[in-house]
């Protein structure tokens, strides 16, 4: 027999093996924009306290799927969703679910930094205040400081908390938005191309931050940069034309993908 025993090369060094229970479970998720079916039934588990990257060419459905997880698609006219998405077993499309509460559990950071036209302090304090998380001024101050610290921004802004958030640099604004998202202690943070409007240094800071945040949060990131997906995530899901083509450990997806389409995309043969 002309065979030799071989095994896949394992380069997983940063996946926490202990905690692999799915935080978000989606089954048969279909999304329609009017008549057009944009997602054709996605089954994907998001593991707790890991970074899951969604990659794929423009129009593949990765952002659409991301937006299903905090029901951002509800506000899109003519958008209809089928299938099931559950966070810790709670069906988020259940009629009894309060969407405002859901978005406190599932925070979001967008492509373009979008701080409120308010002071740096107010940007972070707003969420905890409306959700009634802080008991008084002192506690609110503490949440603001902790959130800005976790977002790696505290030292840069502690002396000008009353200045407008819009006066910060692009990278600082994005970290402010991350601080705002984590101020309400979400369980899941969705990031929709959070670095595509930033320069390489600001990008590196956000990536470093993502790595720290995954100790406490479950993160799902949509990115156009495959190198970024490879760097920051533990799991990667590849979408194409509305299908989830392949999902696996990031190291496997980028060194030895199983599907022809994944291989062709990540090696730059179509897109």
């Amino acid at each position: 027999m002309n065979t030799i025993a071989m095994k896949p090369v394992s380069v997983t060094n940063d996946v926490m093996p202990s905690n692999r229970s799915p935080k978000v479970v989606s089954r048969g998720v279909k999304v329609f924009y009017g008549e057009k079916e944009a997602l054709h039934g996605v089954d994907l588990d998001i593991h707790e306290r890991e970074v899951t990257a969604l990659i794929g060419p423009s129009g593949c459905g990765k952002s659409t799927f991301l937006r299903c997880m905090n029901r951002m698609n509800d506000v899109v006219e003519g958008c209809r969703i089928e299938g099931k998405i559950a966070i810790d077993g709670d069906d988020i499309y259940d009629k009894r679910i309060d969407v405002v509460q859901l978005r406190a559990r599932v925070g979001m950071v967008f492509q373009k930094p979008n701080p409120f036209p308010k002071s740096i302090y107010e940007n972070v304090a707003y969420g905890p205040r409306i959700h009634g998380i802080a008991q008084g001024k002192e506690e609110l101050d503490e949440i603001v400081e902790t959130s800005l610290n976790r977002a790696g921004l505290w030292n840069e802004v502690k002396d000008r908390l009353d200045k407008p958030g819009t006066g910060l640099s692009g990278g600082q604004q994005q970290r402010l938005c991350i601080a705002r998202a984590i101020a309400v202690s979400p369980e899941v943070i969705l990031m929709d191309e959070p670095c595509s409007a930033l320069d390489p240094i600001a990008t590196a800071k956000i990536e470093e931050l993502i790595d720290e945040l995954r100790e406490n949060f479950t993160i799902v990131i949509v990115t156009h940069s495959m190198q970024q997906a490879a760097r920051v995530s533990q799991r990667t899901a590849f979408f194409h034309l509305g299908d989830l083509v392949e999902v696996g450990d990031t190291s496997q997806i980028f060194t030895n993908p199983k599907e022809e389409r994944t291989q062709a995309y990540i090696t730059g043969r179509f897109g």
Partner: protein
Amino acid sequence: MPAEHLVKRFDDELEKLDASISEMGGLAESQLAMALAALRERNSETAERVMKADNRVDELDRAVQNQVIRLLALRQPMANDLRLIVTSIKIASALERIADYAKNVAKRSLQIQTLTTPPLALNGVDRLGRLVQGLLKDVLDALSSKDDARARAVWKRDADIDDVYHSLVRELLTYMMEDARTISACTQLMFMAKNIERIGDHATNIAELLLFRWTGEEVVEERPRGTS
């Protein structure tokens, strides 16, 4: 490879890398063939040619290194591209070592010319050399034709070479014990045999690298060993 890259230059660079490796393979093969001929025919001229030609192999090895560094920096290759590029640099160093060993065999063939050499001992080294030559040829053919079955066959055959090598060493010891005047020559032959056996190991390494390149999996089976 499934299809071309969107960036045409990337494909051009990969082709260039392939061309460098092919040239190195061809050179390593002919270096070994010439070194064995020099030994067999006691031909100093051929031996000198082998020693000179080694420069070109070293040059190509450096060229491959630079090409690989450039590709990694500029293209950030993934998946099969990444495996192709990373294995190229390792295959190049294996071929560079093979050419070095061939050069060493050529050098020793010069030294042996004036010494008392048992003809049968010379034949033994030549026989081992031809076996290894066949192995090297097969692995290079597997490389150019992307034939994984052939690469696996090479991997399995290294054990035969070990066997021949070990019996040759015993044979050489016998000659030395029989006639002390052959010790100088037989010692040289012993080193040559060792070098040739190492070439076989490198050819087997290349087979492993090719299997990894094509499948993304590494060989876990223990390499077949000779009987002694």
